[in-house]
């Protein structure tokens, strides 16, 4: 799921810090806005907008941090509205619902761990590409040179 690859150049200390921060940003927002799945997306989006003029390494990791929110965003939004419908409408808890919530928790946990790992590694200047999101980021985020 996670690939360690060589980046085009050796990122500097401050670049590594900024890149790592973009993951930390999503982690903090993840904890703060847990019931509302949209919050961590907004937080990473703000960080992305603030850093899109940064160096290539920073830009690349901001983009990956933002994109990686997408899958859990969809999963959590659906789970969120499903829960709301159980509380406020005659819909009842079913096996399907419990299974969905468990699957959602596993995916959130997976993303959470991967984010921590990536934050730590990028802080050391190690370039980490995620399955699917790494490739997607490569398409979106081009080096200026």
């Amino acid at each position: 799921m996670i690939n360690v690859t060589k980046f085009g150049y050796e990122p500097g200390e401050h670049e590594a810090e900024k890149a790592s921060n973009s993951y930390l940003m999503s982690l903090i927002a993840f904890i703060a806005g847990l019931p509302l799945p949209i919050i961590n997306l907004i937080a990473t989006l703000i960080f992305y907008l603030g850093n899109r003029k940064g160096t290539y390494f920073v830009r690349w990791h901001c983009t990956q941090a933002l994109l990686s929110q997408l899958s859990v965003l969809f999963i959590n939004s659906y789970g969120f509205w499903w829960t709301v419908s159980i509380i406020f409408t005659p819909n009842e808890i079913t096996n399907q619902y419990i299974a969905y919530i468990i699957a959602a928790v596993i995916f959130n946990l997976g993303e959470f761990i991967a984010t921590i790992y990536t934050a730590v590694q990028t802080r050391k200047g190690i370039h980490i590409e995620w399955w699917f999101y790494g490739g997607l980021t490569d398409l979106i985020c081009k080096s200026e040179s």
Partner: protein
Amino acid sequence: MQIGVMKKIFIQGLLLIALFFATWLVFAQVDWMTVFKVHQMTDKTEQKLGELFFDIFKKSEKENVNPFVANCVDSILTKICKENGIDKESVQVHIFDKDEVNAFALPNGHLLIYSGLISASDNQEELSGVICHEIAHIELNHVMKKLVKEVGLSVLISMTTGNGGSEVIKETAKLLSSSAFDRSLEKEADIKAVEYLVQAKINPEPFADFLYKLSANEHEVVKYLTWASTHPDSKKRAEYIIEYSKKKSAEYEAILSVATWEKLKEEIAE
């Protein structure tokens, strides 16, 4: 080169989605409701709540212990349950001496009928209709749904553990006796009631007449019309009951003889 990369990313994305759905599907094979004892927990809560609320009515109102009245109502109930495959043990009927035209369901299948309702019924089909409507609420689990929605699960559970406070319990009991369910739940119960009636070979039209009569306020016991006033749009309900029962043509037969019905009314009047 670019197309190849995009294809690879696309496949990776699809795999990611497939992985999620596969995880969901695998977990959905487990019967979580049993694992977490969802049903047992709710059953226990419902049982406790039923006792709690019934106690309140038992203390504040007078229960009718006339065996003839009990037998008559039981005959109607037995017939309805038998013809519809309902476990008769799941419905416990109690008759209270009160002029209010009212009948309502409490948690755990307690069905309370006020003598005023029996007096206000011109024939046994009308009474059977109201009983069927309340049984439908019980069978469709409307009582607990309403309680959870209006009071909240946490308050309900705290009641059963003895931390509820008697005022809260009283107010909640009142909520059940003198307010209707959601419009959609009422309609669902009406439709189900007609099904029960037809299945038990009871003509559903008098049930519609009963609602119509009450909505028209022509009845002598107008001031006690709780059941009709808490159930909104009686006229509309009467209309769709007629509409729905027209589709079901069947032969009808009386449960109680005319003489028995007359005697029941006399006993109630005393």
